[in-house]
């Protein structure tokens, strides 16, 4: 049986929460995954799935402390503690992929979570209430780039009655902001270590930062390759690598996966293969719908457009200094291009447009994401001034109840025509 089909059938059904907690499930899935390795055109994707399965197993079978993290919290600290990071927003995306999101969203709405908020957090809330997710031992979350996540984490902490640690990341502030964030990170790391009874040694932390740096190096090489050659990764697959960015920075496996990804792409480039027939090169902003949809397939195969670059995969941070772990993690958090005044994001996007020879930019306008969507107008104006066509594609990454594929495809078609007419 196909790996994905089995996951959907067994974990997506009513027995899902029991299946997720059974060691047998993971043995079967692991065997299936091993058997299906040859079906993966990108071995890095296979490795990432194997890693994700192992992390899920560790989390549900409670082999190690489970720490829930919001997606922008620096996970290097969690890996240094040998804990299992679990991002509920990633869980929401997986739930959407398994066809469970509607059930969880409905449950969250009964709990007074309104549709005016982000569906990643609503879906995660619903799955908490349905007790689908692995219970946390502690929670860590940060304020930057998202107003919903901090509040979701406060709900979850109250639900599970577990300790919660908050990282306040300002959008501006220079060196004072670095000190402020670094101090909080050090305090959180110390308190987590104490709470979990796991020593956080200097060596472990340094190793996690070195892993993070090595992964970063491979990301840079991957991006360089994608810039320089005509090899393109199917955008939907490239976007899936955000799983590593959101939960696995600092893990040794992340280095291996990115190394493999680089080798996969090198191989494709060497053979002159193209994962997607390249005609127009797009820059993709924000994320994508995670429920079943034909958006990317249509874009890449029918319209002949390639996602040459994704904003989410951009390496915006400097290498970390293992000798000054908290300061460099603070600098990394603060250097996110979407933090603070919108000019930072615009400057980054214009740079990506130049580097990747972009023909057009698509922003997937996820309903409920105030942070990303609020910058649409100035981004559109800046791109227009640079002569780059821009499309804001309204939709929702997790809530597929109002998904109107025909309309989205028609807009994409029109957009590609506009690029061609240039």
């Amino acid at each position, binding site marked *: 049986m196909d790996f994905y089909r089995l996951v959907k059938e067994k974990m997506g059904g009513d027995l899902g929460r029991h299946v997720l907690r059974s060691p047998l499930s993971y043995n079967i899935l692991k065997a299936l995954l091993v058997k299906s390795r040859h079906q993966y055109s990108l071995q890095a994707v296979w490795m990432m799935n194997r890693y994700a399965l192992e992390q899920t197993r560790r989390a549900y079978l409670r082999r190690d402390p489970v720490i829930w993290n919001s997606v922008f919290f620096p996970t290097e600290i969690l890996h240094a503690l040998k804990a299992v990071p679990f991002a509920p927003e990633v869980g929401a995306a997986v739930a959407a992929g398994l066809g469970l999101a509607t059930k969880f969203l409905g449950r969250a709405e009964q*709990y*007074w*979570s*309104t549709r*005016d*908020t*982000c569906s990643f*957090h609503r879906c995660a809330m619903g799955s908490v209430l349905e007790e689908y997710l692995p219970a946390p031992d502690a929670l860590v979350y940060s*304020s930057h*780039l*998202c*107003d*919903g996540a*901090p*509040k*979701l984490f*406060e*709900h979850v902490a*109250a639900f599970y009655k577990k300790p*919660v640690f*908050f990282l*306040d990341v*300002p*959008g*501006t*502030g220079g060196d*004072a*902001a670095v*000190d*402020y964030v670094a*101090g*909080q990170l050090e305090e959180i790391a110390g308190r987590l270590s104490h709470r979990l009874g796991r020593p956080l040694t200097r060596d472990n932390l340094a190793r996690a930062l070195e892993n993070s740096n090595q992964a970063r190096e491979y990301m840079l090489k991957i991006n360089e390759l994608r810039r320089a050659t005509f090899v393109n990764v199917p955008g939907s697959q490239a976007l899936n690598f955000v799983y590593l960015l959101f939960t696995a920075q600092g893990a040794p496996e992340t280095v291996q996966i990115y190394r493999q990804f680089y080798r996969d792409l090198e191989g494709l480039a060497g053979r002159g293969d193209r994962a997607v027939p390249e005609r127009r090169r797009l820059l993709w902003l924000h994320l994508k719908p995670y429920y079943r949809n034909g958006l990317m397939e249509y874009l890449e195969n029918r319209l002949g457009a390639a996602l040459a670059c994704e904003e989410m995969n951009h390496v915006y941070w400097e290498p970390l200094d293992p000798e000054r772990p908290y300061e460099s993690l603070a600098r990394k958090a603060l250097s996110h291009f979407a933090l*603070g*005044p*919108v000019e930072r994001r615009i400057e980054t996007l214009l740079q990506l447009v130049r580097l990747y020879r972009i023909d057009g930019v698509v922003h997937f*306008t996820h*309903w*409920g994401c*105030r*942070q990303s*969507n*609020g*910058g*649409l*107008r*100035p981004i559109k104006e800046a791109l227009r001034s640079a002569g780059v066509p821009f499309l804001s594609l309204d939709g929702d990454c997790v809530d597929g109840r109002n998904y109107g594929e025909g309309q989205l495809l028609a807009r994409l078609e029109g957009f590609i025509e506009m690029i061609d007419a240039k």
Partner: protein
Amino acid sequence: MVEAQETNAKEGYFASDNFTVGWTCSYIPEEIIAAAGLKPYRLVADGTKVTRADACLPGNFCAQVTGCLDAGLAGRYPYLSGVVIGFSCNAAVHLYNAWRRCITHGFVYGLELPRRDTPEARKFFSKNLGHLLLALEQHYGRRVSQEDLWRAIAETAETRRLLRHLYHLRREARPLVSGSEAMALVRMAATIPKNELNPDLVRIIDNLTAKKETAGGSRPRILVTGGILPPALVELIEECGGLVVCEDACNGLRYFTGMENTGDTWESGDPLLKLATAYLGKPPCPRMSRAAETRSAELIKLAREYRADGVVYYSLKFCDVNLYEFPLLKKTWVKPVSRF
């Protein structure tokens, strides 16, 4: 008198000068604007239909952000020479972005607002306040002394003391002030220079106390809580026969509570650090980390103090922090407060 003052504030009270500076969030210490010899003016969306801001911001932004931007774009703040926009949330950051890009004149400053109250956060915030002060000095050509800051702090503290006294009167069995009147007074306090307002506030309170005319003693007493409250909501509740006895909101109680003079250290040391400490330590708005834990207990206390028969939670549509807070608060309220 309340109505007259409110009208003044709306219609050109500030028009004759070029020193009025708008501010957007109850975590922005308006004392700093006042210390620079400027007139701090609280920006609160007035409920007018948004017609222009939609071109600058997405439709799913809250009415406070779109309303303020719309008013700015439509020229409904002709007296403003600048604004200080607090980074209260992501929508507010984009208000700052949009204001700079769409309303291209005047002083525009984005102020970072920590979301936690710790010694480190206060220190960081006080540094940010120092940057704001410097920016005001440079833009308006002023030099602000420590005495200027302490004077502004003292005047604002007096306004807040008077408002607290006024709100105490509402705890009585037969309150002397209605919700609509109280909201208008808080609005005045946040828009009119304190040295001019304070004597008026004293007179208003004296008159109310002398007249002893009840605002509606036998009506159901309602506590309204949330982020920014539209005065129309309070008016509606009172038109329907209720009496709003307390507004726990950024433009109500949270504007003036929790920043009392604590005695020995208030008028010494670093005034900016004192301001940072006072503002971050006040009863939290839902934007603050783990605010619901504090607010649950605080609301139960308020409901008892103000003898509330019921609580109305108001959230602006698309206000993430308020919308997420409600389920947490709802769970804790229904038990101790008997009548809802």
